[in-house]
Every structure is written in structure tokens, then in C-alpha cells.
């Protein structure tokens, strides 16, 4: 459904040029739900805006839904649906009128029937709901309206830009259900961006991790997690008197020769270890630290998450990079 080669975009502003996306190659197959995961400012939205014809790439080429992005943007537009990050409804216009306009813009054959069908599927058929302007809707309802607008013309490929950002947990889970059903029932291919690991994990068949404008890893959530071999042990250090960084470095030295430790990273007063067979090696780790005179505040062990994958691939935590960019 999508074949992109070397897609890049540079923004030239007053403060010099910014390479938002630096050569992205990606392929998305029919009927897949693919998640584009990365921190804010990694280039997710820019890539999405290029693939949806909103932004001309400065380099590279792509075929989207069987049409060439550069030579046939109109053809791409007819075959894709796009739901922007902040939605795209006029807060004062009744939802039903927005859907009607959208249906007419795409030349949908029987707009009234299509709107009824969409409203039923996306649970927008509540009493008088479509007569309400989006300003008078709940966050979840507004988001479902945005999705409905993107689906009016039954596109085989839908782009969702951070579909669940700002939704409460219940509405999120709800929207995930709808997105899964899109694929299962209609065979729609879904390409979405997210900076939530649990979302990528729960929803996506395949995840592309993007960082600083480049794709740094790709695979199914399970595959990616397997790449982070072993379990993650986080050792929180208690620095009685001594600065934590020193304690952390001492701890790392103490564990350097340990056979189960594959990798050790110092993270603000804590030591993050990637460990083979964590259940068994935990005791000997503690002993080694104890012998080196390192005081522990807490000890945690976890199976790897996509956050760990991100950390392994980029050397930074997804949460940290997200807050740094914000």
C-alpha cells in the first residue's frame, strides 16, 4: 500500500535549516496496521504529511495506494483517508453537515446512507448527536467524528495522526477497537503515528521506530522486544553522602565482569541493566553490588517493553526525549 524510498524534508526558517525527515524508506502491506512510533519532533507527522500530499518532499519518492506521490497527488488523495492530529472540524458546524460536505467533496454515491452507516459503526448515532456542533461533543465523540470524516469515501488506506492523544483511557481502548475492526471487517490498511508504547504494542501488527528523522528499527512488537535480549533490571542507588553519579559508576564497575550482564547504562541515580535470565541472576547481582559497598534504594525487574527497545536503539528513553522536545 505504501512504498517510500529516501523520503526527506528540510524546513528552511529564519533560524537556519532543519532536517525534519532525513531519508525514510518504508513499506506497508495491504491490510496491515502499522504504527509509527517516536518522540515528539522525531519526524512522524512530517512523514505522514508528505505521504498524504500535504507537504512536498524535498527528496525521495513514494507510491501511496498505487499512485505516485509526486506525479499523481490527486490520485493519492482519492484513495486515502487522513485524520489529522487535532482533527479537522469547525467547532461551530453540526457534525452531520460536516459529514455531508465531506461526502460531497469525495463524490460519495449515496451520502445519506453512508453517513448513517458510519454513524452506526462509530457510535455517533446517539439521539441528536449529529445535529450537535463538535464543540458540544465529548473528546471521544469528536475523535470518532474525525475518524468518520476520514472514512467517508471508503478509502483502502487510512492515515491516523496520533489518534488517541488527549483521550481518557476508556475512550482510547474504545477507539482501538474501532481501528481493529476497520482492518478486520473492511481490510483497510491503517498507518498511524503514536508516541504511546502501549498503543503501538496493543494495536499494531508492525512498528516502525523513528528518531531524529530516521527509521531506527522496525518489526512486530514481539520481534522488537526480542531484540532487547534478556530482562531489564533497574537498580536504584542510595548515595549516603557520595554523589549519585559516582555511586552509579562504582556500581557499573562492580558489575562489569558479571557474566549475566549484557549492558549497563547509568540513568540519573539509577543503573539500568540488560540481564540474561533475570530470575536466576538477580541474587548474584545483589551480592556483587554488596561486595563493592554499593547501597541500594530499590531493585526492579521487568520484561522488555517497546520503551526498552527505543532506549536500546537510540540510547535515550522515549519518555525523556518526549519531554525534552515538548
Amino acid at each position: 500500500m505504501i512504498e517510500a524510498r529516501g523520503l526527506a524534508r528540510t524546513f528552511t526558517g529564519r533560524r537556519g535549516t532543519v532536517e525534519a525527515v532525513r531519508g525514510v524508506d518504508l513499506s506497508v502491506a495491504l491490510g496491515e496496521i502499522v504504527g509509527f512510533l517516536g518522540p515528539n519532533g522525531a519526524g512522524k507527522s512530517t512523514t505522514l504529511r508528505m505521504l498524504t500530499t500535504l507537504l512536498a518532499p524535498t527528496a525521495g519518492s513514494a507510491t501511496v495506494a498505487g499512485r505516485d506521490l509526486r506525479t499523481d497527488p490527486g490520485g493519492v488523495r482519492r484513495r486515502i483517508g487522513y485524520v489529522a492530529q487535532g482533527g479537522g472540524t469547525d467547532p461551530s458546524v453540526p457534525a452531520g453537515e460536516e459529514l455531508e460536505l465531506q461526502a460531497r467533496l469525495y463524490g460519495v454515491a449515496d451520502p445519506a446512507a453512508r453517513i448513517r452507516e458510519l454513524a452506526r459503526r462509530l457510535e455517533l448515532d446517539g439521539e441528536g448527536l449529529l445535529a450537535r456542533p463538535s464543540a458540544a461533543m465529548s473528546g471521544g465523540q469528536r475523535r470518532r467524528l474525525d475518524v468518520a470524516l476520514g472514512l467517508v469515501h471508503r478509502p483502502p488506506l487510512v492515515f491516523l495522526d496520533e489518534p488517541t492523544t488527549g483521550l481518557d483511557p476508556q475512550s482510547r481502548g474504545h477507539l482501538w477497537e474501532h481501528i481493529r475492526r476497520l482492518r478486520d471487517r473492511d481490510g483497510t490498511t491503517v498507518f498511524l503515528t503514536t508516541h504511546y508504547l502501549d498503543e503501538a504494542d496493543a494495536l499494531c501488527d508492525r512498528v516502525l521506530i523513528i528518531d531524529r528523522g530516521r527509521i531506527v528499527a522496525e518489526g512486530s512488537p514481539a520481534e522488537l522486544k526480542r531484540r532487547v535480549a534478556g530482562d531489564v533490571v533497574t537498580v536504584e542507588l542510595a548515595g549516603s553522602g557520595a554523589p549519585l553519579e559516582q555511586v552509579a559508576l562504582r556500581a557499573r564497575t562492580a558489575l562489569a565482569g558479571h557474566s549475566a550482564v549484557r549492558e549497563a547504562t547509568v540513568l540519573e541515580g539509577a543503573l539500568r541493566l540488560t540481564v540474561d535470565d533475570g530470575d536466576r541472576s538477580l541474587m548474584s547481582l545483589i551480592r556483587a553490588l554488596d561486595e563493592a559497598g554499593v547501597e541500594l534504594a530499590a531493585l526492579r525487574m521487568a520484561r522488555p517493553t517497546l520503551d526498552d527497545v527505543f532506549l536500546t536503539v537510540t540510547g535515550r528513553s522515549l519518555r525523556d526525549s518526549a519531554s525534552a522536545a515538548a
Partner: protein
Amino acid sequence: MRSKVGVVFGLTQPLLYLVLFGPLLSRVGGVQGAGGGNTWRAFVPGILVQLALFGAGFVGFGLIADLRSGVVERLRVTPVSRLALLLGRVLCDTLMLVVQAVLLLAAGVLLGLRAPLWGIVAGLVFVALLALSIASLSYVLAMMTRVEDAFAPLLSTVTLPLMLLSGIILPMSMAPGWLDAVSRFTPFRYVVDAARAAFRGDFSSSAMLEGAAVTVVLVVASVALGTHRFRKENT
């Protein structure tokens, strides 16, 4: 078109000029003779152009709201032609302005405007085409500035000199040489003069021809610029 209140409020300012300023002009107007005996014939076209300048000039604010809510982006992903994206808005604005202009003309007639019907219709066509150009340009400026805080001061900086130099209130024929020369560089002057000629029923005058030529160029240029901007629009 959603707000009928907007149509009425947009009319207040030109209507106030008409009622509270127009009568003054008819006292001094005889001296200048610009209206060919009926000063309303000179004054009303000016007020109509002012209506177009300010009424259509402000439409960009609506686009900024739509840019922010994501409506513009949603429309740009649809296969609709970029020209249609612009014209849909611009024609709606123009229609609204023509309705206002007709109401204003009716008020003018009540106050004493007498002009040949064809002249009035021709004048309206000029005003409609002018509004169409100004609305397109307003959208271009709105897309360039993107925020109200920057758009509003830019708009007033552009519209006020254009209004004064076009001789909307008093004909530029009264101006001293240098002012007259400067005003020749602003397109609206020719449109005002042409509308005045039309109201006098003076269809073969050079003012009429110049005005028509300037208007056509203005429409083509502003719509081309607007469409280009809708195509390129990004960030």
C-alpha cells in the same frame, strides 16, 4: 453565510458614513461637481468600494480560524481542485458582499441617490469583482501570517492607505498633483472612478475602460495568487 447577523453588522459602518457623512458632502459637493449635480452619485460608489475593501478584507480572519481547527488541512487532503478550495470561500464572501451592497444602495436611494439602473448594475459588477479580488488577497495574507495578532495590524496598514488613496470619500480629481500621482499607483482608484462613471451613465468614458481593465487584471492576479497559495500552503 452561516451568520445573518454578520451581514447586518458589516453594513453598519458604511451605512453610518452614508447617513452621517453623506449629507455634509452634498452641501460642499456642488463646488466640486464630481457627482454631476447629484453628489450621492459620487459618494455612494465610494462607499461601496469601501464596503468591499473592508468587508472582503477581513475574510482572512475566518481562514485563520479554519487553519487552526484543521479544516483547511482536511479539505486539502480531498481530491477537490485547489482553485475550487479558494473559489468556494471567495464566491461565498462575494455573494454576501453583493447582498450588503444592494442593501446599501437601497439606503442610498432613500437618501436621494438618483442614477440610471444600468449604471447601478455596472457599478455593482465592479464592486463584486473587486470584493472577489480583495477576498482572495485577504486569504493570501492570512495564510502568510497565520495568526490574528500578525494579520490584524498588517491588514489595517494595507487597507487604510489604499482607502485614502483611492479617493473613496472625495474624488481624487480634487487632489494636489503629487497626491493624484501617488493614487494612480493604487488599483482601487480606477475601480472607484469607473463605478462613478457607471453611476453617471457614462459608459464610454476612459475612466470606465481603465477601471474595467484594472479590475480584470486584479481578479486574474489575485485568484492566481490565492490558488497558488492554497496549493503550496504548508508548515
